[in-house]
């Protein structure tokens, strides 16, 4: 036996257990020992499952960042694509993504939040409201490519916007709308009804109660939902592919507002798809760097949302 093993250390002889020690009353039988063993094994098995699925994901994401390092610098972020996108940077794509996200949020956030307020605070509880609620919840799970079809049918063709930033961001807005509505409703529903009733009894109107009691106490939840939606909108590719994204557009380097709303634009997610599948001979570090910027964006915004949720939970008011 190796001298390093603790069992080989000279252990003091076990003291005789006093009869009042409660552990002496419960001597472990074979049955309980087996039970404890299965418990231990179950814990290990489930832990291993969690590790087996989550660790590789972390490793892969880490791998993306490591492989991206050679290409990842300030010039890459603010530079223009060169030599048919085999060199240079991603600035137009980054700016395009910002355009799409901001425009879609400008449309979806107010409408979504107010629609959530309407459904949770004003709508009467009848079959129509229930049907709308059901439709909203389920639309949140409809595939993004179906939203792309909707965008093509409604905005590009029917509304005559053509392929443009407007059409693409409207499509994104409609895609994020159900999720924003659901998030808003959940945040509002977390404020107990008794507060509302107390205020109504004091002669406050519905809106006054919403403004003074309900919204201040659900604001954090709504904001968290909105931030998560920004993440999703920024990463989506399918809905913008046919409604406004373009493979390449010449803009000035580092120019902050390179597009008009009626232009088509480049977008980071679509750019990643393009350089990875359509263009042969793009240096690998550039591919990884593009993916890393996209993942980094998501990571930053998600951390915002998580930090906010933790802070909210810390100062709960009731």
């Amino acid at each position: 036996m190796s001298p390093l093993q603790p069992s080989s250390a000279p252990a003091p002889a076990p003291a005789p257990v006093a009869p009042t020690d409660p552990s002496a009353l419960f001597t472990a039988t074979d049955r309980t020992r087996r039970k404890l063993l299965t418990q231990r094994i179950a814990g290990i098995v489930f832990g291993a499952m969690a590790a087996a699925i989550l660790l590789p994901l972390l490793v892969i994401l880490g791998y993306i960042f490591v492989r991206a390092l050679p290409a990842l610098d300030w010039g890459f972020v603010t530079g223009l694509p060169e030599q048919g996108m085999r060199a240079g940077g991603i600035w137009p794509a980054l700016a395009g993504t910002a355009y799409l996200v901001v425009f879609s949020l400008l449309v979806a956030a107010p409408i979504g939040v107010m629609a959530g307020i309407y459904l949770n605070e004003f709508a009467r509880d009848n079959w129509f409201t229930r049907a709308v609620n059901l439709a909203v919840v389920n639309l949140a799970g409809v595939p993004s490519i179906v939203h792309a079809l909707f965008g093509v049918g409604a905005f590009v063709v029917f509304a005559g916007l053509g392929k443009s930033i407007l059409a693409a961001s409207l499509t994104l807005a409609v895609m994020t709308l159900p999720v924003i509505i659901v998030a808003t409703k959940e945040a509002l529903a977390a404020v107990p009804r008794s507060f509302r009733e107390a205020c109504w009894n004091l002669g406050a109107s519905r809106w006054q109660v919403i403004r003074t009691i309900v919204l201040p106490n659900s604001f954090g939840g709504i904001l968290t939902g909105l931030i998560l939606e920004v993440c999703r909108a920024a990463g989506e590719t399918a809905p913008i592919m046919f409604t406004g994204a373009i493979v390449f557009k010449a803009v000035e380097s580092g120019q902050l507002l390179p597009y008009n709303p009626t232009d088509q634009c480049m977008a980071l997610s679509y750019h990643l798809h393009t350089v990875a599948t359509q263009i042969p001979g793009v240096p690998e570090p550039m591919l990884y760097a593009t993916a890393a910027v996209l993942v980094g964006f998501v990571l930053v915004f998600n951390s915002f949302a998580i930090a906010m949720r933790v802070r909210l939970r810390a100062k709960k008011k009731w």
Partner: protein
Amino acid sequence: MISLLKIMLLLALVAGVLYLMYLIYRYCERTMVTLIHICGVSAIVFVFGIFFFIFREGAPFLLKDFDFGGFFLSDKWYPTSEENPRFGILALVAGTGSVTVLAMLFAVPFGLGTAVFISEFCGRKTKEALKILVEFLAAVPSVVWGFIGMMVMNPLIIKLADAPVGLNVLNAGIVVGLMAVPVIVSIAEDAIRAVPDEYRAAAEALGATRWQVVRKVIFPAAKSGLLAAVLLGVGRAVGETMAVLMATGQSINIPFDGNAPFFHPLQSVQTLTATIAAELGEAPSGGHHYQALFTLGIVLFAITFAINLVADLIVKGIRKGK
């Protein structure tokens, strides 16, 4: 310089608009209530607009000489053929089905196992950390997953399985499975948390170990919630677009046949979603191909809507039961 000026002007404008909006919010009750009602109605319009516009574009294909057997039961998808275009989606359905089944094969056990571990077997700190991790993984864009499939899984599969191409059902199945795991974990975790603590306390008071509690109390009590989690995972897998577009290899095949082992995970396939994503750009607007793609959209819509509806009803059923 001009750009800077433009931005400052823009910021001033935004500040002004925000201030105006605050004034309305604070003092104009009637306006706000009207606005809220308008937004509620317009959200409803948008919701039904989605149904309307997809059906509107796909309708001509569905109404004029729609060949049911040729659409659902044929594997001949030749949408761009000059003389005899054929629109059989069987191979595409098989593609979606095989990827989904393969993905669920490991996403379901691992997802549920992880959910059980998070909610029953680990400490508070680990729990918080894992939940944040899962949430973050759920937010990674699908195009990044597709990229991982192409750049990481592809060479790995070629090397390990000795396959000619690494972009196939196996690759897509793994990638989509990894994407579905966070969905399954978070919803299953919700379902397990919804089991009242009294149940656990009661079982433990009778001398049950954690594992027995999970097996005899948690699983039966959270059964329908776990089912909903699996269903939503399936919905996510069926609707996934970019990842399968990049990882399946994009060739129309049915990865099943009569020869053993009956299922060939190393074959490249094409899914319903990927077909739309790959072909909508080339299909001339209003043409037969274009309408056929919208009909694919209707099929996808119907499948995912049905899955979500069932999952939603299950979850609602749980809440009502409480």
